[in-house]
């Protein structure tokens, strides 16, 4: 298992989560650095979303604790933003108002909101769509709005829960590289949950593989890929090597699940 030398911005110590009789995950130890992207992969239902919720303080872990910048997380902290798979845009708000949401709640001054919202709408390539409603946007554009809303609060921790999972393959690839470009211009801690092994390897400095029931960290793989990451990475031998490694870890799990299912029958 690899150790992370950098002072962890996010410190996860012995965390477990249980819903009634269902123990979702346990023994999660993970430190995430200030300018690090950690990808999390694992089979459906292994608790990836729940872990992100714990990091954001939306739910409390049953055991262990999570600290961000040394402070124990008990409620959603300032400076942490989430991007949701379902986009989570408010249908009655325009793009502008959706992006402004976090700043308005934080009570930011009017001119600061106007400046920041305009800048972030432009950053994600939605200039001119300020007045559009979510129903008028494609899935890709909706998630651009979700990303702008998160970034507008100027977070130092970004939690991504399968942000591009419900977006078509071509747009997804464009968004992946745009996100990488944005991250290069303002590096921050990022936890990137995904179902796609390629995406996990492309985004992450490390890939955390969750496995088992209840699940726990099975393996942490340093991708060792250079940054800034460009499309060239996708065809590099190292990328393929890591992808195969993660793939075999997850396939093993899938096969085991299949066998258990056979036994039940």
């Amino acid at each position, binding site marked *: 298992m690899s150790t992370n030398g950098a002072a962890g911005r996010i410190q996860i110590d012995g965390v477990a989560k249980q819903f009634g009789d269902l123990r979702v995950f346990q023994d999660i130890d993970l430190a995430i650095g200030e300018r690090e992207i950690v990808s999390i992969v694992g089979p459906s239902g292994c608790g990836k979303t729940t872990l992100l919720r714990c990091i954001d303080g939306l739910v409390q872990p049953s055991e262990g604790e999570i600290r961000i910048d040394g402070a124990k997380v008990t409620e*959603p902290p300032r400076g942490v933003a989430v991007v949701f798979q379902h986009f989570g845009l408010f*249908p009655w708000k325009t793009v502008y108002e959706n992006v402004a949401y976090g700043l308005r709640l934080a009570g930011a001054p009017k001119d600061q909101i106007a400046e920041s919202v305009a800048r972030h709408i432009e950053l994600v390539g939605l200039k001119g769509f300020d007045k559009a409603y979510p129903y008028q946007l494609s899935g890709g554009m909706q998630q651009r709005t979700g990303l702008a809303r998160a970034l507008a609060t100027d977070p130092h921790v970004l939690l991504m829960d399968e942000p591009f999972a419900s977006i078509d393959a071509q747009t997804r690839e464009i968004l992946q590289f745009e996100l990488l470009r944005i991250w290069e211009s303002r590096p921050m801690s990022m936890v990137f949950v995904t179902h796609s092994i390629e995406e996990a390897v492309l985004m992450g400095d490390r890939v955390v593989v969750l496995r088992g029931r209840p699940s726990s960290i099975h393996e942490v793989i340093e991708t060792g890929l250079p940054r800034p990451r460009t499309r060239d990475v996708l065809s590099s031998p190292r990328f393929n090597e890591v992808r195969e490694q993660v793939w075999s870890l997850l396939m093993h799990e899938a096969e085991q699940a299949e066998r258990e299912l056979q036994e039940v029958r």
Partner: protein
Amino acid sequence: MASVPHEVAIPRTYGVSARTQRTFLRIATGVILLVLWEVLVRWLAPPFVARPVTVARALPHVLANHLPPGTPTFWGAAEATVVASAEGLAIGIVGGVLVGLTMGRLRTADRLLRFYISTFFAMPIIALVPVMTLWFGYSSTVRLYIVALGAFLPICLNVYDGTRSLPASFVEVAQSYRARWWNVWFGIALPASLPYLLAGFKLAVGRVLVGAVVAEYIVNLKGLGSYIVFDSRTFHQPEMMVAVLFLALLGVSVNAAADLATRRFLPWYRRSE
């Protein structure tokens, strides 16, 4: 799969737009009904029974308030009814939104209140008017309670439904941006429930008008209800009929305004998925 014959699949419009055709049919029905009314009354009823021609003849002097001394004036009555209805709607909206949101967001409030509010909603509250005259006297207070309750109940239950069907994901997004409970109630649950609120408002308009008019009949308050009773009893049927038509027009136009407001201010409604 059997293919549908071409002639059946496409409605014939004979070169006229579907909208024009619909309007034409609607007007045609109206004209036929008016003619039937006129003919049947002339043929079968005594001369004091209102028919379209006499109503039309009564219209100018009713609207100009030119009535025999001692009779209630139309505009005075209309104003009283409209003002009381508007007050009732205002109270009903504010109260209905607050209670509906509270029941929708707090399980305890739901358990304490919803059964009784649903029961009141299901029962004809105008049945309470006689007993209310004993409690509050023969005063406009009775009408105010009836119209306020008439607006409150449907709005409250609709806002409740809207709040209950609020996707949990919206609440989670709000909480992740550090929203407090009041931000969730009034910034998320309320706007998400606006389509429900509007549906409740349209129900409320009908109930409020019925409540106001019936309260005016029974309590004999200045208003269109008592105007209608007076004119009916004094053989001023065409004059009375003007008030009935006015009430119909009022209900229809408030609802049309609500639809217009939906399209204008809730463009996202019915289009988000």
